[in-house]
């Protein structure tokens, strides 16, 4: 199945697309949080599952659930695969 190249994607579209997918949330402090995005809101408050805390490329902590306050979020990053389950290569 081939998807037509999407030229335009608004932030809300992006957000609805990444729910349930593995994401990297980078904070302004430079700390990365990797996990499954369970939900978020318009303030970029984020709830993550299976969260890993990465500082300077090193895994520092793991949390089951984590709430991240939106004001600290620099970006939310996801893999390009859309709608399809990403391959879990460990």
């Amino acid at each position, binding site marked *: 199945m081939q998807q037509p190249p999407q030229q*335009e994607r608004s932030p809300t579209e*992006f957000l609805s697309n990444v729910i349930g997918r593995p994401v990297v949330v980078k904070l302004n402090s430079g700390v990365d949080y990797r996990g499954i995005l369970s939900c978020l809101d318009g303030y970029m408050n984020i709830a993550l599952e299976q969260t890993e805390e990465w500082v300077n490329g090193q895994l520092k902590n793991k949390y089951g659930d984590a709430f991240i306050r939106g004001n600290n979020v620099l970006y939310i990053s996801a893999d390009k695969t859309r709608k399809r389950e990403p391959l879990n290569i460990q």
Partner: protein
Amino acid sequence: MASATNSTNQLLPLELIDKCIGSKIWVIMKSEKEFTGTLLGFDDYVNMVLEDVTEYENTPEGRKTTHLDQILLNGNNITMLIPGGEEYLLQATPLTSQQITKLSSFLTKQIKRSLRLSLNTMIFYYLICFYTL
């Protein structure tokens, strides 16, 4: 928006960014951080969706780059947006002091030359005027 009238030749700032959708853009943040990537969309807060992103971080150890597939960038810390992309970034790499001195001496030379030229033409025209009168 401050401008009430939107004449045809006047472009609102966000309309310029709207024209960049689908093409490369360079984002400069408040801190020592920059992003380039293809702009897919943005909202009123200038939160941006970017694809094939390169993140540049200026750290004391030097410039660090990270590749990211697709991101939603928080608009809160954006200072400047430049349509285009890396081609501008290459020009923006910091110059060495040697290059700066070379460049400044070249520029002063050029300015002096142009001043001298303009002065010469001024005198020339002045003399012509003087003689014709």
